[in-house]
């Protein structure tokens, strides 16, 4: 009997409520005191095609999906045929045997347990919509895993409006009863409530964590154009705007979004936008304008595979160099890559502070896998990071003796920032090169001085970043192998380390959270004592390796690269690590 350790895949066609069902099941496990990780896989379609959602459950903290599946909830035949080979030996399939006939030849496996449940018949009996088959399947799954139906019921009550919930509760109960009657005692997997049940863990996506971080940071303006996988951030923000006095505007394009964001920031509020690669292309010019006019903005760039429209609903890390270099000319910027939902929250708060302290654009670089997967986290500490608005002048009137100059030369390059409407201050700036007062200029000497002023901020910023966790080391301080990575590879890397356990070779992992300015000293310290180095990335050209070469004049020993739109699986990654050594 395997207790509280399972990986469940729910699959069906687009529009069948797959992600929703997976989420409900995951919540039911979380509510029982278990750790959960949920990730989705869907195509760029509204109806049809194949979607699935994987819920992995464990008693200890987990950071990614597993390589294999223990139980398949198949809402159509395709799901079975596509995923049966990922099922472990002795795994099970919950499906509607009255609708799907399976023949031995195509199954080609006889070790699987088949749990047929009349999903469609139950829905018909209840006179409910076909989409409710999911709930019947969830009820049956709870019975098969000997779990507590009351927990699922509570989740259903939370998730639906009373009338809809009522019907779904009946559906779940009928599925549950059917499975109890027909499939009792068959499963080798069980789920049990643990002592952590009722403890306040949260289960959320990277997008949701970023949104919460932004709200907590006091963001008052968010403009974006829909683009997967950043769109859910817009969805999540939209209903919150009225509640938190935050303006959420769906712009006519990413060009508009970045310029509106700049406008709002110029007017004095914290402002943010979010997009994916294609949209970020359109934002590039505006990005440079915010740097030139020293207007603080935060941009989330959620990567998906490119070039061009690429794989709209899949994941990748091909835009690191793009984030670091986008826009013409040279200017300082910060590029932060959170690696899990907690970092999504806290680093978003950091992003706003850095943007305002140094009056620069700050990019949060994420990807589809991070922002759309659900992770378990301890309740966020809303007070861990304070709000620092830098040299923002909030007084009604400017009190300086000299005439106010928006781009005044200062020791560290940061100029006091008045906002329009401030009395006794003309707040003027230009996307063209400008003098201290903001007037356009093409003077040679001033151009040099103004460029230097902007780059002085980089020195101050680099110094300030010493107070931030720009890198994180996991595992022993000294190890046979040092893995380097950034962003969402964190989950699979940490899982791979767990799988390795106490076996040799010993592995440690340096997560680089701040990619620009590159945390040279921290990385150097670790690399100096590393025996063998392996960079793990979801791109073709190993962009992190090139940064290490650029900043440390060091070549990493091995690169493990995956660029098919899918995240690494832990065992797959561990095997690759062993192979390259």
């Amino acid at each position, binding site marked *: 009997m395997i207790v509280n350790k399972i990986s469940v895949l729910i699959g069906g066609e687009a529009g069948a409520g797959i992600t929703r069902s997976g989420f409900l099941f995951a919540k039911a496990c979380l509510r029982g005191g278990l750790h959960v990780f949920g990730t989705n896989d869907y195509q760029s379609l509204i109806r049809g095609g194949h979607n699935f959602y994987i819920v992995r459950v464990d008693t200890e903290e987990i950071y990614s999906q597993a390589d294999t599946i223990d139980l398949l909830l198949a809402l159509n035949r395709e799901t079975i045929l596509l995923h049966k080979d990922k099922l472990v030996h002795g795994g099970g399939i919950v499906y509607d045997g009255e609708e799907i006939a399976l023949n031995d030849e195509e199954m080609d496996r006889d070790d699987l347990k088949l749990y047929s449940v009349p999903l469609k018949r139950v829905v018909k009996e209840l006179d409910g919509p076909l989409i409710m088959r999911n709930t019947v399947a969830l009820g049956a799954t709870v019975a098969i895993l000997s779990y507590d139906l009351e927990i699922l019921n509570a989740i259903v009550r939370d998730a639906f409006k009373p009338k809809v919930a009522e019907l779904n509760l009946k559906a779940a109960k009928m599925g549950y009863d059917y499975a109890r009657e027909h499939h009792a005692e068959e499963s080798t997997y069980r789920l049990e409530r643990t002592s952590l049940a009722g403890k306040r863990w949260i289960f959320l996506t990277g997008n949701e964590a970023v949104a919460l971080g932004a709200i907590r940071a006091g963001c008052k303006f968010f403009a974006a154009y829909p683009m997967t996988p950043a769109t859910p951030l817009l969805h999540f923000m939209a209903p919150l705007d*009225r509640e938190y*006095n935050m303006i959420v505007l769906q712009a006519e394009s990413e060009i508009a979004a970045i310029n509106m964001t700049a406008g*709002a*920031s110029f007017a004095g509020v914290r*402002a943010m936008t979010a997009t994916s690669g294609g949209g970020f292309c359109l934002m590039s010019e505006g990005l*440079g304008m915010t740097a030139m006019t020293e207007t603080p903005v935060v941009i989330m760039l959620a990567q998906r595979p490119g070039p061009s429209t690429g794989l709209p609903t899949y994941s990748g890390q091909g835009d690191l160099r793009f984030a670091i270099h986008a826009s013409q000319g040279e200017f300082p910027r910060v590029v932060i890559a959170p690696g899990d939902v907690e970092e999504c929250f806290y680093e978003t708060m950091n992003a706003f502070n850095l943007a305002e302290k140094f009056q620069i654009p700050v990019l949060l670089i994420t990807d589809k896998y991070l922002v759309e997967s659900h992770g378990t986290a301890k309740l966020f500490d809303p007070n861990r990071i304070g709000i620092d608005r830098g040299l923002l002048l909030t007084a009604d009137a400017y009190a300086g003796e000299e005439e106010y100059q928006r781009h005044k030369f200062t020791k560290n390059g940061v100029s006091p920032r008045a906002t*329009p409407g401030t009395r006794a201050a*003309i707040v003027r700036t230009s996307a063209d090169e400008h003098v201290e007062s903001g007037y*356009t200029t093409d003077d040679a000497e001033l151009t040099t001085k103004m460029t230097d002023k902007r780059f002085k901020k980089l020195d101050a910023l680099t110094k300030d970043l010493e107070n931030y966790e720009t890198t994180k080391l996991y595992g022993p301080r000294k190890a046979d192998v040092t893995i380097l990575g950034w962003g969402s590879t964190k989950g699979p890397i940490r899982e791979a380390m767990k799988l390795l356990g106490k076996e040799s070779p010993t592995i440690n992992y340096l997560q680089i959270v701040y990619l620009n300015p590159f945390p040279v000293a921290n990385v150097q310290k670790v690399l100096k004592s590393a025996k063998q180095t392996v960079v793990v990335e979801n791109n073709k050209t190993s962009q992190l390796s090139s940064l290490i070469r650029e900043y440390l004049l060091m070549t990493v020993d091995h690169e493990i690269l995956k660029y098919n739109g899918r995240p690494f699986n832990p065992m797959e990654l561990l095997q690759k690590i062993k192979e390259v050594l």
Partner: protein
Amino acid sequence: MSEDSHPFERFLRDGMMPHIWCEGCGNGIILNCFVRALKDIEIDVNKVVVVSGIGCIGRLSGYTNTDSYHTTHGRAIAFATGAKLANPELKTVVISGDGDLFAIGGNHFIHAARRNVDIQVICANNFNYGMTGGQYGPTTPLKAWTTTTPYGNIEHPFNLVHLAAASGAVYVARWTTLHVRRLTESIKKVLQKEGFSFIEVITPCPEIYGRRNKMATGIEMMNWFKTAAEIRNASDPAEAEISPEKIVVGEFIDAEKPTYDHLLREMMKQVQERIRGEK
């Protein structure tokens, strides 16, 4: 104020003079009408933000003694939208050219008008891209000669007032730089009006455009405006032609419609009250 000082002195940045505009250019007239309007209505200049795009007229924001932001090419309206929504007390005036607002920035124009964001747009229409060397633009008349239409323009121009009206602007007017009094009145009106307002100002560009089209001086271009202009207030903007024989000017639309800003704040208030009620 000394006796010799100009009545507009406090609105203008005299240190920036002389301006960059050519002899015979109408941009100075537009600047003049704008600051006269500011003075006449005794607006709190502290709350006025001038947002401009790229082009000859874009430099205007540098000459006024107001807060200002000179954006990249075409983005003035999007930028002003963000600024206005973030601080509703500001009066955000976008002053830019026909190429900036309707070629590269056309998308922002139609959407801001559709949303009825409370910003005021003044477009200096000189029928071509002056600053970059006289290329044809979205308002260049058919058959006109420009540096990039050496055999005459074969693209149909936009009728800007028709476009603005169709997109939802609550105030739409067209004047030429000859109509200084009416133009000033229009600017005064929009500065005191809520909603997306649009004023097209047909302005002479003798040096870059006129020269190639048999109007080599400002006087010649102004003479064209004088003989061709026909004031037709409240007429259908779809019929507001611009041709060698006729330039229809006037105030076409002056309507009331809830602004985006207003609807947004109303909704915020309602939702917050509901949430308080639930708590």
